[in-house]
């Protein structure tokens, strides 16, 4: 890219690399800058003053600051999927080929049709949307809100998935430091020399803080040289880590801090395998906030005109970037620090149009300088700005005594004093305190282990910053047990900071407090008149401080104006609550890698890859991928595949991976006694080598989980849970073991991942198993009766386990092998079963067969049902105590009119039953009064050749044979169904026992 000449770039100086020119585009125009520029400094170097339009009034706006507090210069950075709205030009590093566009203007920045909003300014006052667009109410969604959103607003999101990756990381240290200015570097020196593990986070891409623009002398050498020597010393320390482009944005419990590192934001796109940004959780024993202070504007008419800029920002652009925001500049200050700007401007060969100082006295040195350089010093304040989208032309000065003066200038530097960055110290509900000499809030308290130092603590002189930072660093290191020698603190002079508070200059025209949200001084006055006097009400009514900059340049001025109009002091008026994050953090950074298919971890069964080779369709079941069915060529839909699988099982033999069931080893002499307490039925009397179905209740008497548990040895049971509750049941049992029944000698181990377990079902099950297990194993009814469970030897010598249990209602076994053999077991079953026509089946066929058999599962064990509701009331032992027994006896839980499990089939055999459909008596109008339950599980039954289901229906078991009505308001399907026994298939159980 070839850019035009940089008209506002100084011949020399600045921390830019003139050997590395960069081309970029802003609103389609081509410009040039240098490595080391921000987008804002490069725009300034090219004489660009107008960079955006304001939120509500579409007023032309320029660049106000040179940091992350910027309210105005927000752009859409990059293109396409990488387009980032509301990016601060003041912190966006320039790179070759950067593309940015201004926001909130149409059709162009210079000719913004929406600027017509300014004509309607009277209706956009504080709280305008509460007042103006209330009636008629239905117009809000359809008309008012879309219209307001079109007219007002910030940048546009890309609307497509972010192509970049983000990650998250943890870091640990003794001393964490926010900010690399003099205080931060001095703190790092002291802590690092003491031997502490130090992390220093700097938001900027260059270390050094204000001295990068304001210079100074430290330990007798220029600040730049001291910074460079300090960095060398810190680099030589083994455990000091300096993280640039990293903003500490929050502090949480236990010394955990949040930080966002912009790893590759300074490049067009991240290099391959690298992330865009990284979210850090930094655990620190001590932290030091050396985040500096933010210069604050003064509120006067036209203070948002492009070319009005913070005085410190003017110095940053001139000194650090060798870019001149104006050629003839005026200064409006109420403090001594603002005067630095005069020296900077004169040094760069700029003209000073005038210095307007609100303080009654100006030092003789300044008067001498003014005389020498030939500019007037005016005692008073700036009352208005003449200019517009092309920038400042003239400023009007209200002189002390009442006279007015006009000053021609193309730029105005403003300093209203400095506000310490009190965010981090206040994030645990700390309220900063007012400090009179600097007329600013300073930290009063801080989260545990945190202190503020330097400007962030209200100490503005270079000497004080170094002293405070060093002392804080040394103390923090000592607190963490590091006792090395910190040496002596770096020293510098303590320059004077005299300030006469000035917040608002009354006058005609809009005077902005919150630039980004277009909140004016009169909005605050209006809010006060309307009773929104509390700062929290003021904030929400006017939206002061609620924009993406969180009011960094506006909050204190807003409070001051509210204090003035309500006749209170500023500390009486108080501050709003400070909340993280300190700067906006992309949601992508919080998500990290957890997006798309990596949203959560996945679990694969031991036969997963085999099933995948078979073409299985997988379903997400919690974290699991489970084979749902195995389609075959020519099958037109899932129902055809599932029906085939069911028929193959019921007519021959099939197998299904059931490894997802939770499996728990229950060990110890008291294992049986323990199980008696957690299940409603008895397990202590279960014979070794046998399995039993068990049901657990919650404390409140509602059913928790079910499964079969086998006794493999006198002191060893093997308990299974449902897939869904596996982790929860393990937690529950550990709680019972450790807290409720510590007297029992019982140990629990999850063995869910140890065993690959398959259900083998169908009349030819034994034929298949005989091919798999050692011929010496007796699989006959006598040798391995129904509900038998024991270890067996498999052909080839490995050991497995067999359980004669059935979920399908067929002759069935479950076989388990150590998990690394699970894949081989699936392949061997296929190989051995080939002559038998063995069919792998998925969870759908499993579900069909359990519904046909009337077994309850997740839809019935739904957290509202009792054992009796499920038809399992007889399992509740009366001879022992168990969890949930007492509460299960509550009146409502044993009421005769409870909804209980019953079978349901449509009267018209062609009707498709739907889960969730409501049951109402025949001939009644659907409604809450007539609702008697609902359909919980449905399937197409290949055996009955029609849709069938289970439901929870009031007094269902007493109503077998009754014709009722299903009502499905979602799908609009209503028809008659018959209540029937839930066991549709082989009710006497002969098949599974056969």
């Amino acid at each position, binding site marked *: 890219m070839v850019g035009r000449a940089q008209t506002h770039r100084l011949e020399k100086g600045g921390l830019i690399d003139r050997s590395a020119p960069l081309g970029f585009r802003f609103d389609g125009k081509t410009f040039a800058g240098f490595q080391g520029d921000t987008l804002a400094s490069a725009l300034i170097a090219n004489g660009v003053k107008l960079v955006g339009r304001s939120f509500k009034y579409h007023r032309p706006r320029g660049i106000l600051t040179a940091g992350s507090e910027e309210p105005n210069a927000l752009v859409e950075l990059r293109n396409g999927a990488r387009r980032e709205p509301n990016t601060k030009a003041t912190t966006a590093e320039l790179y070759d080929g950067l593309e940015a566009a201004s926001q909130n203007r149409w059709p162009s920045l210079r000719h913004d049709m929406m600027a017509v909003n300014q004509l309607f300014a009277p209706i956009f006052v504080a709280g305008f949307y509460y007042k103006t667009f209330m009636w008629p109410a239905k117009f809000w969604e359809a008309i008012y809100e879309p219209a307001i959103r079109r007219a007002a607003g910030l940048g546009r999101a890309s609307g497509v998935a972010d192509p970049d990756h983000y990650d998250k990381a943890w870091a640990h240290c003794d001393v964490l430091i926010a900010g690399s200015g003099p205080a931060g570097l001095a703190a790092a020196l002291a802590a690092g020399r003491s031997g502490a593990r130090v992390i220093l986070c700097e938001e900027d891409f260059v270390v050094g803080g204000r001295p990068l623009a304001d210079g100074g002398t430290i330990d007798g050498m220029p600040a730049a040289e001291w910074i460079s020597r300090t960095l060398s010393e810190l680099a030589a320390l083994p455990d000091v880590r300096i993280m640039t482009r990293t903003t500490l944005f929050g502090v949480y419990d236990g010394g955990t801090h949040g930080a966002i590192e912009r790893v590759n934001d300074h490049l067009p796109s991240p290099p391959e395998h690298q992330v865009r940004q990284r979210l850090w959780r930094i655990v620190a024993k001590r932290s030091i906030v050396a985040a500096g202070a933010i210069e604050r504007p003064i509120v006067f008419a036209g203070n948002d005109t492009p070319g009005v800029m913070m005085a410190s920002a003017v110095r940053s652009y001139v000194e650090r970037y060798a870019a001149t925001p104006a050629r003839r500049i005026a200064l409006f200050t109420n403090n001594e620090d603002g005067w630095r700007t005069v020296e900077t401007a004169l040094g760069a060969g700029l003209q000073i149009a005038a210095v307007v100082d609100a303080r009654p006295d100006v030092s003789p040195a300044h008067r001498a300088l003014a005389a020498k350089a030939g500019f007037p010093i005016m005692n008073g304040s700036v009352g208005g700005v003449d200019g517009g989208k092309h920038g400042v032309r003239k400023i009007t000065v209200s002189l002390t005594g009442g006279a007015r003066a006009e000053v021609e200038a193309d730029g105005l530097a403003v300093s209203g004093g400095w506000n310490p960055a009190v965010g981090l110290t206040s994030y645990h509900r700390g309220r900063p305190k007012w400090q009179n000499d600097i007329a600013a809030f300073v930290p009063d308290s801080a989260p545990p282990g945190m202190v503020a130092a330097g400007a962030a603590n209200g100490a503005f002189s270079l000497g004080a910053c170094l002293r405070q930072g060093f002392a804080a660093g040394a103390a923090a290191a000592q607190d963490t047990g590091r006792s090395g020698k910190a040496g002596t603190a770096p020293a510098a002079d303590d320059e004077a900071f005299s300030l006469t508070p000035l917040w608002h200059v009354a006058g005609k025209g809009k005077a902005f407090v919150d630039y980004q949200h277009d909140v004016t001084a009169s909005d605050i006055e209006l809010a006060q008149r309307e009773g929104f006097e509390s700062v929290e009400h003021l904030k929400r009514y006017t939206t002061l401080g609620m924009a993406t900059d969180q009011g960094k340049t506006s909050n204190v001025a807003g409070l001051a104006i509210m204090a003035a109009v309500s006749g209170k002091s500023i500390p009486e008026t108080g501050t709003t609550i400070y909340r993280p994050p300190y700067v906006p953090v992309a949601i992508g950074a919080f998500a990290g890698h957890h997006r798309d298919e990596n949203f959560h971890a*996945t*679990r694969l069964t031991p036969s997963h890859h085999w099933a995948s080779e078979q073409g299985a369709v997988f379903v997400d079941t919690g974290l699991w991928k489970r084979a749902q069915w195995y389609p075959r060529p020519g099958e037109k839909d899932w129902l055809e595949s599932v029906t085939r699988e069911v028929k193959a099982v019921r007519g021959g033999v099939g197998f299904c991976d059931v490894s997802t069931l939770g499996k728990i080893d229950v060990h110890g002499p008291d294992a049986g006694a323990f199980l008696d307490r957690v299940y409603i039925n008895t397990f202590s009397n279960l014979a070794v080598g046998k399995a039993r179905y068990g049901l657990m209740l919650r404390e409140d008497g509602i059913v928790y989980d079910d499964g079969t548990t086998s006794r493999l040895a006198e002191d060893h049971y093997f308990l299974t849970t449902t897939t869904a509750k596996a982790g929860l049941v393990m937690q529950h049992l550990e709680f019972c073991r450790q807290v409720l029944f510590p007297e029992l*000698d019982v140990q629990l181990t999850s063995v869910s991942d140890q065993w690959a377990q398959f259900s083998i079902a169908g009349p030819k099950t034994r034929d298949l198993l005989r091919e798999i297990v050692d011929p010496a194993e007796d699989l006959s009814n006598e040798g391995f009766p129904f509900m038998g469970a024991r270890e067996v030897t498999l052909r080839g010598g490995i050991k497995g386990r067999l359980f004669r249990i059935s979920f399908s209602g067929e002759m069935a076994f479950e076989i388990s092998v150590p998990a690394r053999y699970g894949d081989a077991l699936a392949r061997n079953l296929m190989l051995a079963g080939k002559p038998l026509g063995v069919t792998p089946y998925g969870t759908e066929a499993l579900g069909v067969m359990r519904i046909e058999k009337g077994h309850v599962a997740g839809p019935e064990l739904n957290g509202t049902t009792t054992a009796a509701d499920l038809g399992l009331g007889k399992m509740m032992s009366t001879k022992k105590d168990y969890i949930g027994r007492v509460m299960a006896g509550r009146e409502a839980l044993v009421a005769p009119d409870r909804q209980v499990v019953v079978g349901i089939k449509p009267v018209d055999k062609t009707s498709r039953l739907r889960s969730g459909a409501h049951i109402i008596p025949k001939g009644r109008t659907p409604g809450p009064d007539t609702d008697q339950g609902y359909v919980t599980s449905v399937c197409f039954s290949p055996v009955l050749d029609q849709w069938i289901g289970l439901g929870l229906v009031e007094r269902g078991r007493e109503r077998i044979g009754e014709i009722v009505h299903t009502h499905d308001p979602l799908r609009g399907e209503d028809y008659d169904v018959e209540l029937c026994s839930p066991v549709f298939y082989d009710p006497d159980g002969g098949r599974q026992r056969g």
Partner: protein
Amino acid sequence: MAEFSWVSRSPLEQGLVTGVHGARGIKAGVLLTEIRNFDLIQVMARRGKGVQMASAAEARFGVAAPDVPKAIQTADASLIWSGPDQYFVLSKGSKHTMDTLTRALSQSASLSDQSHARALIGVSGTKARAMLAKLSSIDLHPQALPIGTAAATSIDHTSVNLWRGNDRPDGQAVFNLLVFATFAESLWHTMLDAAAEYGVDIRHSEEFA
């Protein structure tokens, strides 16, 4: 009669592709090695039998079993703390299996076979700590996690046992991770994502490092 065999298949059989992954043209900063086919037995003291279990373990292994978060190396096994009054016995070559350990320890402890329930991954290389810092909340600094330190912690919301083994001959630290087998492939990809920018050298081995 069908001819079939029992091929042991690691949970990372499919997910792990040996060779170089991620950033190229630099020396791989992370070395990931899966150790396959090990014996892993969970030993848990019976109620009130911690002392007896400790002496039984000492008789069996010649060293005291860990009673704090440590991994202890014996002549032919690692004893890895996994919780109060419990530890893993990790070994190769059927030296310490359910059969042999039951005889030695079952008077005072309950044993559970976990040999197939976990995958074992060794992490080393100059960027091992940087990569693990993306996955684990624990402090991996040499002072905070000296050789032999163990932790029952989590990665990606999933339980893992992590311990620091002996340094490699070149002085690089080695971190061992036991992860649940059914989570292994998913966690493996998470680990590769974390390591890709440093360049990864991927291997598997039948031997401990």
